[in-house]
């Protein structure tokens, strides 16, 4: 029984530099890395030492508190360095690729014929488990949990997002295998959110899954929004979420017995000469994808991910674990003379206070400037416009700031993670760090409630 949800609240930010529907091969990265910092709340413990030889699919580190969760190398090669930050926190585990593409071997089997335990073990050992997140909190799912349902979003609605209809068009069979494996992990349902805009989605033929479609502006493609509309998370419940990309990985794993972490990502943004798609691997060196492809007019900001939720990286950093796009925008570290008083024909704004709102179709080049300084909450009714959930975001944030656990729970903290409120942060007049505050609240809840 497929339902259609039409969302009204939200915002599509129109940026210059959307990826054209062509794919090229990125140069093979000399080094790849896994970043424990991609996983909120994770305490990593290394399973390898520097100079160790690894194959693709061999563990590099594991979760200290759930030691069965492995994080595995995307390539075969030698562990080169382990970059640490403050208090010896592990930032990057870097593997130098040997170019041989040797794979660790796992069970090759039809997941329909495997037991739940066998599937869980296979996902854990291969390093695919960390792609499964739980809601509440957006942390890695606990293998011992019984999820009420599993949710997957079939599209990405964020700015300059990759078009799933394009990048996964040849991987439907693997995705189906992945779904078959996931379906064994829950007694509930596996839900797939389809893009309402696309009349005949490539995912609409998938079986063993309940599809709903969602139309409207971003964040319609966020899995959190889709959960809220379909079967919201209540206190004490756990649902799991994962991505289409992860389903494709899982499918390949069960079909071939190998972990093949190659993925297609979008290289987009106003500073990219020819925005398009690139075939690469997860954890790839950023310069292997971006190098020589940007305009270099102004200082650039390279983002692993999208402009709302991505991570700022440099050319010698690495692609994030779940990121399917790299966005390059101008850094924009400059003063704007009387910027707040300008008529603003070229200043895109979600508010209607600049003349740019007279041109609703135009795409803009936006930089990373804050465009103002941080203030107390003053304007009201603003965040609600960008969150299509029955949640009062400002009250939730204030409960977090007051560290009031009961109120956080009552106001719906179990249903949201940072990406769901990212638009509020973008649009905020007072420049409040919404995502940072929310993560602080989520961390508190993990510690206090678990």
């Amino acid at each position, binding site marked *: 029984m497929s339902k259609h949800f039409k969302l009204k609240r939200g915002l599509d930010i129109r940026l210059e530099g959307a990826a054209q529907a062509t794919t090229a091969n990125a140069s093979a990265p000399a080094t790849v890395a896994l970043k424990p910092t991609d996983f909120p709340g994770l305490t990593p413990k290394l399973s390898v030492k520097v100079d160790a030889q690894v194959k693709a699919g061999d563990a590099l580190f594991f979760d200290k508190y759930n030691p069965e969760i492995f994080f595995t190398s995307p390539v075969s090669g030698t562990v080169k360095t382990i970059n640490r930050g403050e208090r010896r926190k592990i930032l990057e585990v870097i593997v130098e690729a040997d170019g041989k593409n040797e794979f660790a071997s796992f069970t090759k089997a039809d997941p329909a014929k495997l037991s739940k335990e066998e599937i869980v073990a296979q996902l854990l050992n291969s390093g695919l488990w960390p792609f499964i997140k739980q809601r509440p909190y957006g942390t890695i799912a606990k293998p011992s949990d019984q999820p009420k349902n599993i949710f997957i979003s079939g599209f990405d609605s964020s700015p300059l997002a990759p078009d799933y209809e394009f990048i996964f068009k040849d991987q439907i069979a693997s995705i189906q295998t992945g779904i078959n494996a996931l379906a064994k992990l829950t007694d509930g349902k596996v839900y797939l959110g389809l893009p309402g805009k696309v009349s005949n989605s490539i995912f609409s033929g998938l079986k063993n899954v309940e599809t709903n479609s969602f139309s409207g502006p971003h964040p319609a493609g966020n899995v959190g929004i889709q959960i809220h509309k379909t079967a919201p998370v209540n206190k004490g419940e756990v649902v799991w979420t994962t991505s289409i990309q992860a389903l494709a990985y899982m499918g390949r794993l069960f079909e071939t017995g190998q972990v093949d972490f190659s993925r297609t990502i979008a290289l987009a943004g106003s500073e990219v000469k020819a925005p398009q798609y690139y075939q690469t691997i997860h954890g790839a060196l950023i310069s292997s994808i971006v190098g020589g492809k940007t305009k270099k007019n102004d200082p650039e900001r390279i983002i692993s991910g999208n402009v709302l939720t991505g991570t700022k990286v440099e050319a010698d950093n690495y692609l994030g674990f779940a990121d399917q796009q790299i966005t390059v925008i101008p850094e924009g570290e400059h003063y704007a003379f009387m910027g707040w008083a300008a008529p603003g024909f070229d200043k895109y704004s979600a*508010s209607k*206070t600049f003349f740019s709102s007279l041109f609703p179709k135009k795409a803009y080049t936006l930089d990373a400037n804050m465009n*103002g*300084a941080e*203030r107390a909450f*003053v304007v009201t009714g603003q965040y*609600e416009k960008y969150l299509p959930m029955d949640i009062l975001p400002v009250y939730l944030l204030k409960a977090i700031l007051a560290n009031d656990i009961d109120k956080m729970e009552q106001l719906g903290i179990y249903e949201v993670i940072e990406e769901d409120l990212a638009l509020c942060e973008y649009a905020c007049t007072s420049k409040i760090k919404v995502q940072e505050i929310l993560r602080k609240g989520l961390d508190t809840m993990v510690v206090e409630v678990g």
Partner: protein
Amino acid sequence: MKAIKNFFEKTQPHVQKGAKFHWLHSTHDALFTLFFVPKNTSKSGTHIHDFIDLKRTMGIVVLALVPALLFGMYNVGYQHFGALGQLETASFFDLFLFGLLKVLPIIVVSYVVGLGIEFIFAQFRGHEVNEGFLVSGLLIPMVMPVNTPLWMIAIAVAFAVIFGKEVFGGTGMNIWNPALVARAFLFFAYPGQMSGDSVWISASGIDKAVDGFTGATPMALAAAGHTDALNTWNAFLGLIPGSIGETSTIAILIGALVLIVTGIGSWRIMVSTVLGGLFMGLLLNIFAGDNSYMALPFYDHLIIGGFAFGAIFMATDPVSAAQTVKGKWIYGFLIGLLAILIRVVNPAYPEGMMLAILLMNTFAPLIDHYVVEGNISRRMKRAKVNV
């Protein structure tokens, strides 16, 4: 432009903590950011941020106030020359210039005193100067009778900024609309100078007014039973005695249009306030009997006194108003209702708008509380159903 930037950049190190001029830090920062939006880029969270900031927001409100302010200046002159009986001989510029010279000092006093206090507080607290007073500082002169002495303005502004705002923690934390706190302070501290028939018209140079002249506002006349004296068209245009900025309904409507189109002012509050006022006016009409003020056509209430100004510019202050969508409807409706009720029924207060808004400012958190509780109980109920 470059010279200004260089100046501020060069002086920056001298106002840092520990430097000689650290006590000027907030002032330096406020002026620097007034001229230049800072160059800071995003360090965490979203990489892009909207171009709107609090300066823009407040700037739009000030812009929306300008028509009512300019008309107010003109009307000050109009009333003055009207009292002299010289309207035929005085030119448009005579009227406007007279008003400008009367009103400008009040605005200057309001900004100097208010911003002065804000800068000092910001420095002591180690905050940046908030932009809230850019609007409050203009609202205060506009709700004052033109004859208010400047020293009274200064005291009222100081009271409003310190006790109406800073004691609560500054912009964003206050319970009551600061501009109305200033007005209420004067109203209760100096009732003799703040009401009656003589304060509304600048009397300087008037030895003897023309025969038949009265300086009373239409509302005072109506309260005295002279409802027939109201000229609807003049009241709509604003050529009536009253506080500086509040008389012209049409100028206020232009401001309302600016606020609604830009989305800065809450149209929900504006609409619900007007609905509340109309509802109460209609109710009074029905039960009027031979009370002529109660019988005043309900729509006339919208164009006399401070109703329109309050509904558009005062009730919509986001900090002191209700913050939830439902809450805004209730809050606005009750303001309109109470304003007309106080206006007509209570003989002690000629105008009910100020008190109605302050009262609902007080209750706004309570209204919001129930709306939030509603949201919570929906969530709790959902959890129970599923169990």
